[in-house]
C-alpha cells in the first residue's frame, strides 16, 4: 500500500515536471502566457476603475476606496489567471476528440490524474513567476494589501483548481459523445469568469445575487481570495470557500466518473 502510494506520488510529480519542461521549451509562448496576458488584463481593470471613480466623483464606492478597487484590479486578474484551465481543458477535449487519448488509455495511468498533475505543475511555475508583478505594483503604489494573507489566499485558489480541473474533465467526457464541445467550453469559461467575480467584485452586485454567488464555489477562485487579500472580507469566508469547493468537487467527480464510464463504452478509438 505504502509502495503504491510512493509510486503514485513519483508518477504525478513526473507529470508536473513534464508540464514545466514542455512549456519552458517554448519560451516566447510561456512569457506571453505568464506575464503579458495578465498585465494587459490588469491594465484594463485599472483603467476601468479609474474611469468609474472619475465619472462618479465619489471617493468611496460600495464602502470601499479607490485604492481598494485598484488593489482588487491588480490582484484579481493574476489570481483569475491561475484559477482557469483553458489550455489544459482544450488539450483534454482534443485528446478525446482526436483519439490521441489512446496513448493514455493503454498505459497504467488515469486521464484525470495525468492532466491534473500537469496543470498543477504548470500553475505552480507560472504563479511563482507571474505573482512578482502584482506584488511589486502593490508595494510601489502602496495599495491596501495584507501580505501575510497571501499563503491562505493562494491555498484557496489552488484548492479551487481541483474543482476547475474536475469540470474540465466532465466537459472532456462530453467529447466522447459529441466530438466538438468548443462552444460549451467557451460558455462555461465565460460563466465562471463572471461568477468568480473577476470582472466585477461580488460585493458590488445586487445583495440577493451576491449572497447566491458567495454560496456557490466559483467565488473561491477570484473574489474571496482577492477580497481577503485586500482586507474586504475576513477568514470566515475563506473557510466557507473551502467548504463549498469541497462539496462541488465531490459532485463534479461523481458526474465526471459516470460520463467517463459511459463515454468509454461509446468510444471507437478514432484516429488510431
Amino acid at each position, binding site marked *: 500500500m505504502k509502495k503504491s502510494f510512493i509510486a503514485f506520488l513519483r508518477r504525478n510529480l513526473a507529470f508536473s515536471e513534464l508540464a514545466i519542461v514542455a512549456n519552458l521549451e517554448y519560451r516566447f509562448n510561456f512569457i506571453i502566457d505568464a506575464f503579458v496576458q495578465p498585465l494587459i488584463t490588469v491594465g484594463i481593470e485599472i483603467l476601468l476603475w479609474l474611469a468609474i471613480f472619475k465619472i462618479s466623483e465619489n471617493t468611496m464606492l460600495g464602502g470601499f476606496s479607490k485604492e481598494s478597487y485598484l488593489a482588487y484590479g491588480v490582484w484579481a486578474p493574476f489570481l483569475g489567471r491561475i484559477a482557469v484551465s483553458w489550455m489544459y481543458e482544450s488539450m483534454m477535449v482534443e485528446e478525446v476528440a482526436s483519439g490521441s487519448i489512446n496513448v493514455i*488509455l493503454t498505459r497504467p*495511468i488515469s486521464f484525470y490524474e495525468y492532466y491534473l498533475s500537469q496543470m498543477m505543475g504548470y500553475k505552480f511555475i507560472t504563479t511563482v513567476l507571474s505573482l512578482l508583478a502584482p506584488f511589486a505594483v502593490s508595494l510601489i503604489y502602496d495599495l491596501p494589501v495584507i501580505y501575510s494573507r497571501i499563503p491562505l489566499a493562494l491555498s484557496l485558489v489552488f484548492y479551487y483548481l481541483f474543482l476547475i480541473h474536475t469540470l474540465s474533465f466532465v466537459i472532456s467526457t462530453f467529447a466522447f459523445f459529441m466530438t466538438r464541445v468548443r462552444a460549451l467550453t467557451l460558455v462555461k469559461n465565460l460563466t465562471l469568469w463572471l461568477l468568480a467575480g473577476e470582472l466585477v467584485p461580488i460585493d458590488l452586485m445586487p445583495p440577493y445575487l451576491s449572497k447566491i454567488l458567495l454560496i456557490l464555489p466559483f467565488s473561491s477562485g477570484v473574489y474571496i481570495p482577492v477580497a481577503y487579500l485586500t482586507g474586504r472580507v475576513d477568514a470566515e469566508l475563506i473557510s466557507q470557500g473551502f467548504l463549498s469547493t469541497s462539496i462541488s468537487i465531490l459532485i463534479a467527480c461523481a458526474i465526471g466518473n459516470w460520463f467517463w464510464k459511459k463515454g468509454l463504452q461509446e*468510444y*471507437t478509438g478514432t484516429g488510431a
Partner: protein
Amino acid sequence: MKYVIETQNLGREYKTYQKKEGVLNSIKGFWNREYTTKAALKNTTLQVESGQIVGLVGANGAGKTTLLKILSGLIYPTTGTVSVLGFEPWKREPEYLRQMSVLLGQKNQLWWDISARDSYALLAKIYDLDLIHAKKRVNDLAEMLNCHHVLDTQLRRLSLGERMKMEVIGSLLHSPKVLFLDEPTIGLDILAQTTIRDFLGRYVKEFKPAIILTSHYMDDIAELADRLLLISKGEMVYDGTVNQFLQTTETSKKLIYRYKNDHIERELVFHSSELSEKLNEVVKSGEVLELKIEEVDFEEVIHSFLAKESRI
C-alpha cells in the same frame, strides 16, 4: 495449453451517422438523424501462445485495427469474450496495462515536446520501474537499434525513421509480455524498415513476448510472423503459418522471360506443381533469350487470395 490471448466469437459493431447531401438535410439532421450499424469484426475466435508472432493482414477497413483496439483495451467488444494474460482488456486494470504495450505506427506514443530520454524517464515512473534498470535498458535497446545519438533530441525534431526507433524503445521499456504493433514500419524507407524488422526479430528471439503485428509491408509479415491471420470484412479467412499459406495458395511462382527480338519482359504466375508444364509452354512458343523463376511477392499472393475469395 495456456494461451496468452484468447477470444471467443468476438465482434464489434460501429454505429455511424448517415449525412445526406445538402443544406436542407443538414437542417433536418438537427432533430432527426439516421444511423447505420456496421459490423467491423465478426465472430473472431483466436488463441495465441507466448512467444508467438502473429501477422494480421487485411485490406483497409478489414477489421485489423478494431481487433487490436479490443485486445489492448481501447474499445469494448459488442459480442463475445476476450482474455489477454488472463485479463479482460476493456476493464483496463493497471496490472494488465503494465504487462502489455501498443505501438501505433501512425501515432506518437512518446511526448512530442521533450527528448526521448525525458520521455523514457517519465515512462519509467509511469510503469514504476527501477530508474537505474530503466536507463540501462534504454541504452541496451538504443545500442541494438543504433540510435544513441538522437536520445537527447526533442522528438518533434527527429526524422520519421529515428522517431519510430524511439517509439519502439518506448514500447518495450517495461518488458511487455504482449505487444500489439500496428503498422510499425509505415512510411519508413527501406533501410529504416529493415533495421526495425531485424531488431524486432532479435528482440522476440531473446525475450519471447507474444506479438500481434499488422503491416502493409508484406516483408514484415513474411520475415517476422510465424503465424498468419488473414482478415477480410471483419472475418478471419485464413489462420496458419506463412509457409503453409504459400504452399496452399495457387499462385506461388513467377516465370519471367524474354523472347528473341522481343523487348518486352513477360511474366507468368502459376502454382509450383505446374512448373514443368509452364516451362514447356513458354519454350514451345518461341526462342527464349532470358528466363528466371522467382517466388511471387507475398503481397501479390495475399491480394490474389483475397480477390479470389471476393473478399476485397
